[in-house]
């Protein structure tokens, strides 16, 4: 990748401010890259006019000396953020054609910070998936290929698969993602980029299509840790329209970046050494520990005893919340309608049968079952009790350490079609990501290296509540030492 589309957000921002290039040149370069990369299926909607209009505003603002933090930066937006007048479908047929009359708080914050929009990014349907294969638009194809000479199409991960592919392929300098149980971090790891999920409540959920409301958090995905800090600062902030929004000032994360970790203790949870994980992943984890030690941190072994129960806990709570949230798709107010037979009830059931894909139906069924009379206590309440224990594990661990380091995912990117027939195998992708989600903690993936097949692997940092700065700083320390510069070779 050469030229403007190969630059980071910080480089684009600083070059634009220094007058090296105009915002219009930036927007045009990315618009062209987006239009030339349809083979990746990363964007579901392209909005070149939006990016150009924001660029012109930025160019005029520069002339007046009136710049915003993201002036001149065009971004890709995951398709589950409501964008006024632009299709917002959450990767689902049931929302095909839905054009919200309102803008999500996160995207409004980004627009107010001066950013433009390149388009909407493909994703697993309602963010339910780890490979982008549940999307009604078909899977995103990763820009990466294995180095074995084969030509197998790989997943960019999910659910923020379009977001991940767009950054890795130079189709946006930064994008929004959302993370319910790993949907920012696992795809970031699969394509060799950085992504952070902040503390639950930092980013407003208003205007974000709901999956599991007690878990859903928005966050940025970018090339570098610095870019994550820049974007997260613009996305975050108190929003009275979200009842769980944190009423706290947004820290200056970019200004606070420092890879000097002296005095920090990094927890290494012994329960994250699990069977069946390739040796390369544990070897990278060991290198990560040494990198953080080199940055001045002290590694300490910790225990998170309920780790193995995090995934089954998640697969009760998330479907339960999803079955409730997705009750709104009834063919009346927005989205598609199937007439069916049998009056109003028949219309509901026919619309939902035609509009939802297989994985979404499976989760609605699980969620409805675990919330149904007679099972609520045995499943849902039990899971919320175990969730309390998982949260307590982290609280105790953070008495002994400041940060936690683990691998991001138990494998590198896999081939499209390899795991779709086995839901449980697919769910296991998020084994390292889900515990931090259940506890509402900030967590980030940064690229650590390539595996033997030439595919990226990520390292995962979990911080205490509200300590995004600690997570970003440790991420920066790893970034500086990993020297990860690999990019996919352009084939699209």
């Amino acid at each position, binding site marked *: 990748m050469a030229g403007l589309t190969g630059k980071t957000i910080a480089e684009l921002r600083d070059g634009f401010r220094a007058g090296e290039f105009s915002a219009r040149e930036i927007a045009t370069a990315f618009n062209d890259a987006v239009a030339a990369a349809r083979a990746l299926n990363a964007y579901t909607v392209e909005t070149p006019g939006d990016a150009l209009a924001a660029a012109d505003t930025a160019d005029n603002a520069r002339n007046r000396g009136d710049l915003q933090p993201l002036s001149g930066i065009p971004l890709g937006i995951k398709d589950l953020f409501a964008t006024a007048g632009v299709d917002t479908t959450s990767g689902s047929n049931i929302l095909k054609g839905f054009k919200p*009359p309102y803008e999500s708080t996160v995207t409004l914050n980004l627009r107010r910070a001066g950013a433009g929009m390149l388009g909407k990014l493909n994703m697993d349907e309602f963010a339910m998936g780890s490979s982008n294969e549940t999307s009604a638009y078909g899977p995103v194809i990763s820009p990466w290929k294995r180095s074995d000479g084969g030509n197998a199409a790989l997943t960019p991960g999910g659910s923020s698969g379009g977001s991940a592919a767009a950054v890795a392929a130079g189709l946006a300098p930064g994008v929004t993602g959302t993370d319910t149980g790993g949907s920012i971090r696992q795809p970031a790891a699969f394509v060799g980029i950085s992504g952070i999920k902040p503390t639950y409540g930092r980013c407003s959920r208003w205007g974000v299509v709901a999956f599991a409301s007690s878990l859903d958090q928005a966050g940025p995905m970018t090339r570098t840790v610095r870019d994550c800090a820049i974007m997260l600062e613009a996305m975050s902030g108190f929003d009275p329209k979200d009842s769980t929004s944190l009423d706290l000032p947004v820290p200056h994360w970019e200004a606070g970046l420092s890879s000097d970790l002296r005095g920090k203790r990094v927890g290494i949870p012994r329960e994250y050494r699990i069977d069946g994980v390739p040796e390369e992943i544990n070897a990278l984890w060991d290198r990560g520990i040494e990198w953080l030690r080199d940055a001045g941190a002290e590694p300490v072994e910790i225990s998170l005893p309920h780790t193995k129960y995090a995934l089954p806990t998640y697969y009760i709570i998330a479907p339960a919340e999803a079955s409730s949230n997705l009750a709104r798709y009834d063919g*009346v107010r927005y989205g598609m309608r199937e007439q069916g037979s049998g009056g109003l009830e028949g*219309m509901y059931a026919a619309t939902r*049968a035609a509009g939802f894909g297989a994985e979404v139906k499976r989760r609605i069924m699980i969620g409805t079952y675990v919330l*149904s009379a007679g099972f609520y206590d045995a499943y849902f309440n039990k899971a919320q009790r175990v*969730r309390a224990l998982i949260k307590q594990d982290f609280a105790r661990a953070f008495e002994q350490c400041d940060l936690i380091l683990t691998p991001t995912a138990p494998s590198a990117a896999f081939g499209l079609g390899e795991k779709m027939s086995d839901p449980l195998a697919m769910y296991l992708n998020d084994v390292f990501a889900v515990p931090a989600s259940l506890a*509402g903690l900030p967590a980030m993936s940064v690229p650590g290296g390539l595996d033997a097949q030439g595919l990226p692997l990520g390292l995962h940092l979990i911080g205490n509540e509200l300590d995004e700065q600690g997570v970003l700083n440790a991420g920066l320390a790893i970034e500086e030492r990993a020297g990860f510069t690999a990019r996919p070779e352009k084939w699209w």
Partner: protein
Amino acid sequence: MSVDTATVRHIARLARLQMSDAEVAAMVPELNNILGWVEQLGEVDTDGVEPLTAVIEQKLRLRDDVVNDGGIRNEVLANAPDAQHGFFAVPKVIE
């Protein structure tokens, strides 16, 4: 606990999902697989543990009970599959 076809039909009805007999039959082992897996939570001693209700401790805020929105009927109806005379239209419910 495991589900059978009758239970799956009942759950599908609660979830307002129309399903053919073949889909119901296919869903039975899928759900049992997942339910069998989540049942490992039974091993965890949760006696005396309160179910988690807020992932980050915070007080629910109150706001003044005032109208702060409205007057946007056309926007509200703009995405409706069937809007008539300023209302959402649905199949007849009263014979």
